[in-house]
């Protein structure tokens, strides 16, 4: 009788233990899922890389990029001219550089459809190409 009861309680305990274990495993699984979700880039990241569907918005952004770079170039050149009394030479030179900077801005915008410099990306691309050439 005594042994029997002991067995029963043991069985019960074992059952409870395995239940607890299952519960813990469940929690562990959920935790891992949450952590994976937290680490993984969300859908937003993919969206940023994609070209915007709104063509007007794209045109607007490109023109703002060009005009702002031109304005900075003009500003620098004009103030250098004021300071050194060399009108209009610095202004002309810096307008050209500003135009180049504006084109660079638009180029970067078009490359990544992100908003900032895409050096990392372009460098990776060229490195990949280099590897390919080495392989050949």
């Amino acid at each position: 009788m005594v042994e029997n009861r002991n067995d029963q309680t043991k069985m019960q305990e074992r059952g409870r233990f395995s239940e607890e274990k299952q519960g813990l495993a469940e929690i562990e699984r959920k935790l891992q899922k949450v952590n994976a979700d937290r680490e993984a880039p969300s859908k937003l990241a993919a969206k940023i890389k994609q070209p915007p569907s709104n063509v007007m918005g794209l045109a607007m952004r490109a023109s703002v990029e060009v005009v702002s770079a031109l304005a900075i170039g003009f500003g620098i050149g004009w103030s250098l001219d004021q300071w050194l009394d060399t009108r209009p030479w610095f202004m002309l030179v810096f307008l050209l550089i500003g135009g180049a900077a504006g084109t660079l801005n638009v180029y970067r915008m078009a490359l990544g459809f992100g908003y900032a410099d895409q050096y990392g990306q372009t460098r990776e691309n060229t490195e990949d190409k280099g590897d390919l050439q080495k392989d050949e």
Partner: protein
Amino acid sequence: MSAEKHSPLAQFEIKQLIPMQIGDLDASFTNSSLFMVLTVLSVSAFLVLGMRKNAHVPGRWQSIVELSYLFIANLMKDTVGSEGRAYFPFIFTVFMFVLFGNLLGMMPYSFTFTSHIVVTFTMALFVFIGVTIIALVKHKMRFFTFFMPPGVPIYMAPLLIPIEIISYLSRPISLSVRLFANMLAGHTLLKVFAGFIISLGLFGIAPLAFVIALTGLEFVIAFLQAYVFAILTCLYLNDALHLH
């Protein structure tokens, strides 16, 4: 009433509410300042009152507050990565300030302070200077290699460095002009078409329908531009933290 009152641009007029003069500086409290204060108050009320219950199962309001927090947290995670967490309060504040400023400006008889280049440029300048300081503190002199893309032959440097510097300096301008131009154009367009409704008489129904559609679009733009401002700030911050 004078004709000027009906100008589509009259809504952008700055009015002094409490004149103040500090030396030669006109520091009056204007309708623009009033709406900035209102924006700060409504953002605070929205967040603090929404989280007042702090329930485990959030209600509608608390859900919106938590969603807006998660929205910016995810945005920062995707664009800046884990190093950016320290700057979350700043980005979140900027986003909420611009968003609520844009949305409050959609109310009739209100004032849209984001439609003034002074306001947006000041914000963009703060972002620009702050981000540059972060980059300088983090990378010291290595920051200046930012203007020399890797893998460029040295004889290109005299041409490329000025171009890169101008490109870098143009950031606060493009950041501020984008927000300002969108808000200014949208609100002017709304007013212009609203002006046609009465003057066209019965045919005014066409511009009326257009204005209704445009108002919806303006709400989208109000949100989108706040989002763009936040995302650009994040990308500049990312450049500052990681350079190339």
